[in-house]
């Protein structure tokens, strides 16, 4: 696959228009917002022509995205994405990676989120006839593997012909976009600040991608605040998101 062809695939796969069920997941953000851990907006209305000037919470959102990118995606998901990309022709290895993600993800809501988003992404690729998608789905349906997101991404994107670094770029960018988009839908920020956060996070994203991913045996995830928030999510009164 030519670099341009692989880039084009990455654009399509990372596009929030690509249906993968990701819109329904906030990864703890909804609870943090509800608990005012993401700053609060003033109750009083500021007056006329103050559009966009209300208390700006982009710093808090940026910090949340950075935490997720650095300490969950880069140190954990990315290791499995890359390993799955390399093992895309080896069903046994893929299932082993899947089992590792399952065993190493502490919070039930994160585990479930990763499984459900992975399986919906896989479902779309089964429908599209992407090679390797249907057999892997059979294994999930048979209960022999879980279908976690990074494993499915590695498998499917390798089969499509996406280059290794483009897969990582697409996954990282897709994660950031999804989180920022959730923040917009939670009313935390407007459309311009959302793009500002995505722009501000890019140097970090590129810096992380500059280093090689770690091996699955060295994978680690540590986002305690988000994990506690995700665990508390099911008891929240108002729930727009699945986690």
């Amino acid at each position, binding site marked *: 696959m030519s670099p341009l062809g692989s880039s084009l695939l990455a654009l399509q796969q990372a596009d929030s228009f690509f249906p993968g069920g990701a819109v329904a997941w906030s990864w703890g953000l909804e609870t943090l917002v509800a608990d005012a851990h993401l700053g609060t907006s003033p*109750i009083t209305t500021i007056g006329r022509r103050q*559009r*966009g000037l209300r208390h700006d919470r982009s710093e808090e959102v940026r910090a949340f995205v950075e935490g997720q990118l650095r300490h969950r995606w880069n140190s954990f998901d990315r290791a499995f994405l890359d390993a799955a990309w390399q093992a895309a022709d080896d069903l046994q290895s893929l299932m082993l990676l899947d089992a590792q993600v399952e065993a190493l993800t502490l919070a039930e809501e994160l585990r479930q989120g990763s499984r459900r988003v992975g399986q919906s992404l896989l479902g779309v690729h089964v429908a599209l006839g992407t090679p390797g998608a249907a057999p892997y789905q059979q294994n999930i349906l048979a209960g022999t593997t879980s279908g976690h997101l990074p494993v499915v991404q590695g498998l499917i994107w390798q089969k499509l012909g996406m280059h290794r670094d483009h897969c990582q770029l697409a996954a990282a960018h897709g994660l950031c976009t999804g989180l920022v988009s959730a923040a917009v*839908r939670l009313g935390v920020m*407007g459309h311009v600040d959302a793009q500002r956060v995505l722009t501000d996070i890019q140097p970090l994203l590129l810096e992380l991608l500059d280093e090689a991913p770690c091996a699955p045996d060295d994978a680690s995830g540590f986002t305690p605040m988000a994990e506690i928030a995700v665990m508390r999510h099911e008891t929240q009164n108002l729930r727009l998101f699945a986690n």
Partner: protein
Amino acid sequence: MSTALNALPLPQAHPGAARVGIGGPVGSGKTRLLEQLIPRFIARGIELAIITNDLATREDAERVQRSGLIDPQRVIPVETGACPHTAIREDPTLNLQMADALEARFKNLDLILIESGGDNLASTFSLDLVDYWIFVIDVAGGDDIPRKRGPGVLSCDLLVVNKYDLAPYVGVDLPRMRRESAQARDGRPVLFTNCATGDGVDAVVDAISRAVLFDQP
């Protein structure tokens, strides 16, 4: 004569129009509320324009244009590509562009009212689009709506509960709905209206004026 004029304080540069969103489910009475608001604002000398986000037709815009209440050129429909909530939140750029165009065309506009296409209880306005927004629900839609605490009900600047005249016909306990609305809003404003007759609409005009037209005489 000219000295007397010179003695007057210089008029301030016109600060631009305040933008007020009107959201809420289909049929709750958003367009009817507009039709009640327009003559009241005009009577107060407010320079007004309207943007409607009809779902699939230009019916709301045309209805307001034909109403005789306002210069039809001041009423503009914006298409939303079947995504009414996107057009007021994730990607409000078309509405922003239309509001800017209205302000460029009608100098000294004080107020632009933006009616969202009917949406569900989770729809909210981007604060990059509006200065203030109203969420309109109606009594006939069920007295459980305030209790369900959708983001529209919770986060709007003003909750309007319309069609209170219908309460006896749809088995709604109005005092209870008032109580539960106030609870859900936690001290933020709620107003009850009958937009068929205009009852309660003056209070809506007052609320908008206080919030975003305070620099008007």
